């Protein structure tokens, strides 16, 4: 799949932002006044900024309001509804903390639940797609939720929560890569089932429909940079998971914490780039992709 920068930025940043909102909702840390204002500003810049980045991905952003209507069937619509609900509830909860120093606990729990719900919906947009076997697994929501909680805890300064969650997320990341590398072959979809000609012999895509490229190839048959996948996985693991764990367990308070956050974001951006760039869409089969050469 085409690794659109807007989608990589959106899923990474808003995941972090909603993670921070979830911990703030639970009262971890329990902050009021100016400190609360700073925490909520960071969370809103990340969460809402990510949502805006995803709106840039649309062909017609001016019609985005229509996306709130199909929550009965569409995970993308559910994500839109959940994100707005989470941002509104957390705004009320945050205002009470910042301006009146009051923590309305039930409102915080509701906001935390809605924040996690938003990230779950985001993950399900990818996990629901049978056409991308690498994504079509419960590991996708598990990984995105664990990253949201771990990154959120890191931003919220919850050291004792952050390092075990980061390790858990790293384990899920390794499982997702392990599963993903085998998912396409295991799905059973081949050029043979795609054309219905599989039983007749060895199949080869002889001639594509056009000499030029097209939307399908640009969007769904992305194959650039896969040779660096192993190196990028190493970078993602080191920067996204190992470095933050080491840095937050070192003494040094704010400086190492800030470095840990930056390192985590860089690592997760790399991992998210791979999430898209390595995902194989079954439509590529029609163009002779994903088929072992003989």
């Amino acid at each position, binding site marked *: 799949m085409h690794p659109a920068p807007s989608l990589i930025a959106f899923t990474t940043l808003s995941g972090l932002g909603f993670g921070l909102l979830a911990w703030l909702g639970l009262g971890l840390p329990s902050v009021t006044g100016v400190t609360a204002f700073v925490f909520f500003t960071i969370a809103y810049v990340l969460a809402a900024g990510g949502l805006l980045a995803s709106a840039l991905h649309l062909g017609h952003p001016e019609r985005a309001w229509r996306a709130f209507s199909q929550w009965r069937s569409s995970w993308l619509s559910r994500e839109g509804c959940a994100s707005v609900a989470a941002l509104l509830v957390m705004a009320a909860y945050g205002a009470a903390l910042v301006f009146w120093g009051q923590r309305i606990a039930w409102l915080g729990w509701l906001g935390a639940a809605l924040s996690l719900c938003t990230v779950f919906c985001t993950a399900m947009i990818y996990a629901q797609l049978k056409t991308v076997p690498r994504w079509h697994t419960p590991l996708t929501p598990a990984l995105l939720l664990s990253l949201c909680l771990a990154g959120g805890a890191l931003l919220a300064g919850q050291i004792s929560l952050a390092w075990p969650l980061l390790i858990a997320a790293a384990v899920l990341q390794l499982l997702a890569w392990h599963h993903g590398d085998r998912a396409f072959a295991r799905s059973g979809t081949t050029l043979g*089932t795609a054309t219905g000609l599989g039983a007749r012999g060895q199949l080869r895509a002889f001639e594509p429909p056009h000499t030029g490229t097209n939307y399908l190839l640009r969007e769904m048959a992305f194959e650039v940079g896969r040779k660096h996948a192993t190196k990028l996985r190493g970078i993602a693991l080191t920067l996204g998971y190992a470095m933050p764990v080491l840095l937050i367990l070192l003494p040094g308070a704010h400086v190492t914490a800030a470095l840990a956050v930056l390192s985590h974001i860089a690592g997760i951006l790399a991992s998210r780039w791979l999430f898209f760039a390595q995902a194989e869409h079954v439509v590529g089969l029609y163009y002779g992709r994903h088929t072992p050469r003989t």
Partner: protein
Amino acid sequence: MTTLPPKTAKKLGLVIDLDTCVGCHACVISCKGWNTENYGAPLSDQDAYGTPSGTFLNRVHSYEVQPPEAAPAQLVHFPKSCLHCDDAPCVTVCPTGASYKRAEDGIVLVNETACIGCGLCAWACPYGAREMDAAAKVMKKCTLCVDRIYNENLPEEDRQPACVRTCPAGARHFGDLGDPDSAVSQLAAARGGFDLMPELGTAPVNKYLPPRPKDQLDHPQTAEQIDILAPYLAPVANSPKGFLGWLDKTLERL
């Protein structure tokens, strides 16, 4: 509404005969011609005289099939457009309700004024039937020529999809696949019509008819029949004479 209708009164669709298709791409051109001039946003092209790319609702691939035994390879031309699936994953993922499946005839359509161009339906479609138009920024797909098949301003014989009407080989057939007595259902049943990627559970309406295996001239039975004529086809002169004969001998000696 992007939930699918529980049942459609008709299942309009295509039966595509891979045995008859000659790969001329006439259906591609007539589709682009009709659909760029009629319903909805035109099917744009970008950089037509440089490195061209454009929106098409129908594309013809060609595949080589090499049978396992030492038989000749076969070339299969493979037209592919929207299969108007019964369980269309492209419809249910749409966040705005722009994508829908009609309860009356099962045609899957896009309401272009409600499409936000998020592209998720194209991701959900396993067949590559949906393409985002690079100029209009909305999703385009096969409409089964909904503006032809019910169009009373057209002569009766033209009230079928442009690709079917134009196919010079008669490889494309249009009709109601929900009615077991319709000509297309009968054809699909008689010729063993099959689904593409049945394992994905999309329940496509369109059916493909398999190509017949290629004639095998060196098969013992066929070879025998040819042998009746063989004496008449035997070469008359085996060795060159005259100047060519001399040249042949001279070159041989070198």
